[in-house]
């Protein structure tokens, strides 16, 4: 993916004229020339590339709005997970998006939440209905995306319940990405998948997702996801971004963007918090 300036990506600013550049004064000197941010590439609807090659998505629009509010240019680079982390540590990026907030990570990074991340179970629409209780998953075969929190959650929270109820544990298979999960369900290699609600929602609203349906427990919320900043003494950027985000929440731009991408139910409640206490 090619780097784009956030304000270019959003064709038309949705930030009210009164707010544009409102926070210019609070931006630290060193960032006046611009801020470089990385987000993960290819996770619709947060960041994806259109057929014309434009990089778009909720992340892009939100950063464009932040850029407008700050009155400072923000350059966004959609990259892989590895480069997200390594680029942050090497100072290539001033901060990065799409990171899941965990207590362990808060020791090393400042994290600012801007979405809640939850997991839902999905199957083919033709599949028999599962109950809403998590024990409905006992003994089923489910796909998940590797490295996500849900695997831990299934093993530490759901499997014991299954055992308590005298049922088989959940049969988990980890696939590299969301699309691999979709294929596995379609070809019936697994019965269903436990995936990020946002991603599935976006998928289901498109042509390819028509055969799929939420089925079983949904919106199991484990943590927030947000921006990560390198935690160093002189880190002064995080509060500024928090301020900008707060402004966007309060004047409704944030809600508008959530709505645009069908993410309303994944929005954070109240004002964005820096370094929130995580459940895990």
């Amino acid at each position, binding site marked *: 993916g090619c780097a784009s300036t956030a304000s270019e990506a959003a064709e038309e600013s949705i930030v009210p004229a009164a707010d544009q550049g409102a926070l210019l004064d609070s931006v630290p000197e060193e960032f006046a020339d611009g801020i470089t941010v990385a987000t993960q590439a*290819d996770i619709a609807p947060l960041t994806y590339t259109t057929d014309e*090659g434009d990089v778009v998505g909720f992340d892009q629009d939100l950063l464009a709005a932040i850029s407008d509010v700050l009155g400072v240019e923000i350059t966004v680079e959609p990259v*892989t997970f590895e480069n997200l982390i*390594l680029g942050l540590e090497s100072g290539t990026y001033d901060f990065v998006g799409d990171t899941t907030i965990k207590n362990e990570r808060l020791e090393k990074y400042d994290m600012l939440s801007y979405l809640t991340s939850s997991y839902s179970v999905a199957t083919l629409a033709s599949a028999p209905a599962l109950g809403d209780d998590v024990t409905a998953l006992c003994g089923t075969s489910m796909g998940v995306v590797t490295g996500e929190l849900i695997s831990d959650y299934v093993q530490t929270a759901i499997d014991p319940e299954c055992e308590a109820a005298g049922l088989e544990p959940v049969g988990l298979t980890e696939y590299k990405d969301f699309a691999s999960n979709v294929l596995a369900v379609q070809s019936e290699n697994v019965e269903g998948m436990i995936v990020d609600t946002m991603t599935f929602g976006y998928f289901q609203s498109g042509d390819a997702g028509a055969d799929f349906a939420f089925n079983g427990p949904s919106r199991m919320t484990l943590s927030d996801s947000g921006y990560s900043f390198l935690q160093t003494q002189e880190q002064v950027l995080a509060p500024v971004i928090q301020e900008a985000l707060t402004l966007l929440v309060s004047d409704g731009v944030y809600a508008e963007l959530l709505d645009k991408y069908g993410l309303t139910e994944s929005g954070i409640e109240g004002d964005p918090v820096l370094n929130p206490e995580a459940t895990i």
Partner: protein
Amino acid sequence: MAVLETGTTDAKRLALAELNTRPRPAYGRYVAATVAVVAAALFIWSLAINEAVDWSIVGRYLFNKRILDGVVVTIQITALSLLLGFSSGLVIALMRLSDSRILQTLATVWVWFFRAVPVLVILILVNNIALLYPELGIGLPGLPMIIGVDTNAVISPFLAAVVAFGANEGAYASEIFRASIKSVPTGQFEAAKALGMGSTRMYWRIVLPQAMRIAVPPLSNNTINMLKNTSLVSYIGVSDLLYTAQSIYAQNYEVIALLLVACLWYLLLVSILSVAQSMIERRLGFDRKKKQKAVLSSEVTSNA
């Protein structure tokens, strides 16, 4: 024809000797071929009419701009990495074949290292070298640099990709060059030296053209391999053909259709390479005597 009197030949034998011979019809071979052709046809047909494959989507994306850009990136990275890989591979092969223990050891370690480490790791390390060495320059570790430049300013992702794939390919190619140089008869080296050639000329004009005959098939294996492996550059933010297809299906979930798009392009690229390969092989096959070839192939058949 004057038939000399040669003793025992009787009428029955003479009668047989009048007949023309014919090769054994290879029934097994015909059966195998028929089965294979039918299987291939069924496979293609069943794919063509399969509902799971949406050919209209394949058609739509085949000449999509992003896909075409991906093809260009794939070709560029492959070509540049091969250049770097083949040239470094040649040097390393000569080092391994030299009689200097030091050079041998160095080359062996180099090959061992770069064959062992996944390209992905080299790629990520080179691209993020700024993390390990924020400044590149001349100087001793721990002391200030004598001349230094900001690492990120020097290493672009594209350069990182070429370096990583080139280093990897160099290690593999060196093994191929080593084996093929060893297959050139000693007499050729000696004839060149006796004419008063220096080593460089000897290698370029005499040894390598002959070594290439054995090296071309495995080297083109490597070339094709690299063509496909370039999809790893997606890890450092460059999109080649395969990754572009993946990134498109990450959004529209038409996994099979987009993989088929990528396949069709790879088939085209590999076809071009295969034609080039057989042209090169034919040009280099200077001493494959007709006679020898005929004998060889008849040997092989009777096995099949």
